[in-house]
C-alpha cells in the first residue's frame, strides 16, 4: 500500500490573539500551502479540526468558510471534533482520505479561538463533554486531573515534585519555540508554590487557554518528492476510545485509549516503543505526560514519574518528550493541538526543528481528548 506523506506543515503564533477562528484557520492554511508551493484549488479534501467554534464564538460551518478563503472551492470538506483530540482525529481523517485513494492532496487545519472567554466560561465549554451525572457536580477536566494525580501519587508512592519536574522541563523546551505562548523557564519552587487549582495540582501543572492554529498537507508517498525533498511519512496511526464516564474505569491511572491506539499504531508501523526517538505527548496536565509515558509502553506502570526526574525525557535525554514545550508552555488551542504535535514531529524527523532539533528518525504524537476519553496516536518517520 502506498503510504501517506506529509509535504507541508505550519503553525501560527500560539497565545492571546486578536484574530477570530476564520482568520486563524486561514493563516495556518495559507502558510502551509505556500510552503509546499500548492494552490488551494489543487486540494481534493480539506479537514478542519475544531472542538467548539460555535460555543466559543458563534461561528459554525468553518470548513466551508476556510475552503472559500483558501480558494479551495470544489474540495470535499469536513469538520472533525474529538474535543481536545480533534487535531489527532483530523490527522487520522486526512491520513484516511489519502490512504483510501479518495484524495490525492489533503489539507488539514486545526484551530481554536478561546481567550476572549473568561477562564470559568472556557472551562465550562470544555467540561460540557462530560456525562450529565458528572456535569451536575461541577466537575471540570482539571478536577479529573487532580483526582487522578492524587490516586497515582498514592498508589505508586511517587513524590509530588515529580510532576513539577514535568512542568519545568516543558517550560524549558518552550523557550526555544518561537510559536509558544510562554517562552519562560520556571523553577520547581515556583511550580510547587503556585496557587492550587485542583488539589494536589497547582496552576503550573496546567496548560493555559490559547488561540492558535496549525496545518499539515498530505499526499501519497509515491508522489511526495514531486512537491518537496523535505517530507515525512505517517507509518502508523491508531485511534481508540475509553469510557465516557471517567469513574467507570477499573484503574483510574490507566488510559485505555492511549494503550489501544498506540498498539494499533505500533503494529501498523512495525515498530516498538524502543524505536521511537522523540515524542509529543498531551500534557494538558503534568500527570497526563506521566500516564502516557506508561500507557505508550515507554515505562512500566508506576514508573513514568521517574522520567523527568532522571532527565530521560529532557531534550538531551534518551527519549526527548515535548521538545515543542508541549501544551504546557506552547499552549493548547483545543483543535490545533493535535495538529501542532504532528507539526513538531514532522519538523524533528525532517531536520527542521532549529534550536529544538534532536537526533530523530521516528517520532510519535499522542493526542488525548476528554480525560482520555478519545485518543489518537500517530507515528511519523523520516522519508527513506
Amino acid at each position, binding site marked *: 500500500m502506498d503510504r501517506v506523506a506529509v509535504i507541508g506543515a505550519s503553525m501560527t503564533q500560539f497565545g492571546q490573539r486578536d484574530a477570530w477562528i476564520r482568520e486563524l484557520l486561514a493563516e495556518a492554511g495559507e502558510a502551509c500551502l505556500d510552503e509546499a508551493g500548492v494552490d488551494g484549488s489543487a486540494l481534493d479534501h480539506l479537514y478542519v479540526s475544531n472542538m467548539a467554534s460555535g*460555543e466559543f464564538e458563534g461561528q459554525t460551518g468553518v470548513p466551508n468558510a476556510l475552503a472559500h478563503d483558501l480558494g479551495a472551492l470544489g474540495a470535499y470538506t469536513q469538520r472533525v471534533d474529538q474535543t481536545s483530540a480533534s487535531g489527532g482525529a483530523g490527522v487520522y481523517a486526512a491520513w484516511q482520505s489519502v490512504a483510501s485513494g479518495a484524495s490525492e492532496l489533503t489539507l488539514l487545519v486545526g484551530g481554536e479561538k478561546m481567550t476572549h472567554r473568561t*477562564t*470559568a*466560561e472556557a*472551562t*465550562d*465549554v470544555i*467540561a*460540557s463533554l462530560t*456525562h*450529565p*451525572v*458528572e*456535569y*451536575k*457536580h*461541577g*466537575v*471540570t477536566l*482539571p*478536577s479529573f486531573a*487532580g*483526582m*487522578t494525580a*492524587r*490516586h497515582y501519587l*498514592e498508589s505508586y508512592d511517587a513524590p509530588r515534585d515529580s510532576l513539577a519536574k514535568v512542568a519545568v522541563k516543558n517550560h524549558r523546551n518552550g523557550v526555544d519555540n518561537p510559536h509558544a505562548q510562554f517562552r519562560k523557564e520556571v523553577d520547581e519552587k515556583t511550580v510547587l508554590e503556585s*496557587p*492550587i*487549582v*485542583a*488539589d*494536589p*495540582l497547582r496552576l503550573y501543572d496546567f496548560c493555559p487557554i490559547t488561540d492558535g492554529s496549525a496545518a499539515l498537507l498530505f499526499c501519497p508517498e509515491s508522489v511526495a518528492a514531486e512537491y518537496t525533498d523535505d517530507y515525512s511519512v505517517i507509518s502508523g496511526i491508531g485511534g481508540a476510545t475509553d*469510557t465516557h*464516564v*471517567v*469513574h*467507570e474505569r477499573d484503574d*483510574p491511572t490507566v488510559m485505555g485509549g492511549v494503550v489501544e491506539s498506540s498498539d494499533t499504531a505500533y503494529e501498523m508501523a512495525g515498530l516498538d516503543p524502543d524505536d521511537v526517538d522523540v515524542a509529543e505527548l498531551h500534557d494538558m496536565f503534568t500527570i497526563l505526560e506521566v500516564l502516557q509515558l506508561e500507557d505508550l509502553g515507554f515505562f512500566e506502570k508506576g514508573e513514568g514519574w521517574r522520567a523527568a526526574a532522571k532527565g530521560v525525557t529532557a531534550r538531551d535525554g534518551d527519549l526527548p518528550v515535548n521538545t515543542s514545550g508541549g501544551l504546557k508552555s506552547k499552549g493548547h488551542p483545543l483543535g490545533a493541538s493535535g495538529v501542532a504535535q504532528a507539526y513538531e514531529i514532522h519538523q524533528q524527523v525532517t531536520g527542521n526543528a532549529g534550536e529544538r532539533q534532536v537526533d530523530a528518525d521516528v517520532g510519535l504524537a499522542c493526542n488525548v481528548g476528554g480525560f482520555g476519553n478519545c485518543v489518537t496516536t500517530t507515528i511519523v518517520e523520516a522519508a527513506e
Partner: protein
Amino acid sequence: MSFDAYRCPEGHVTYPDHAVCPECGDEQTETVDLTDEVGTVVTWTTSTATPPGVREPNHLAIVEFDLGDASVRALGQTTDPVETGDEVTPVYVEELRDPDAGIREEESQDWDGYRFEPA
C-alpha cells in the same frame, strides 16, 4: 428519592445506566439503590477554579460501593473535605449547581443528586 445504580443479569453494576451493559452487552434490568450504602473514597480533589454556577471551592470525590458480589463507583461532591479511604454516605441535594449559569441546556438533564458526607 433513590440513588440508582444499574445491574444486568450477569451481575455487572454501573452508575449511571447505559443503553446496554458496557461489560457484556446485556440489557440492564435491575436497579440497586445506593442511598443507604456506605462507600469508600477512592480519590478526591478540591477544585478552586469552578465553572459558572458551581460552588467554590468544590470538593469532589470518587467513591466505591462494595455490594458484596459486585462493586460500583460514583463521582460526587462531598459535604466536607475528605481523605482517601474515608467512609461516606450519600446525602440528597435538590440542586448541585445552578442550572441557569452554565452552557448545558437546563431541560436536558437533572440537577439534583447526592453529595457524600463523612460517615
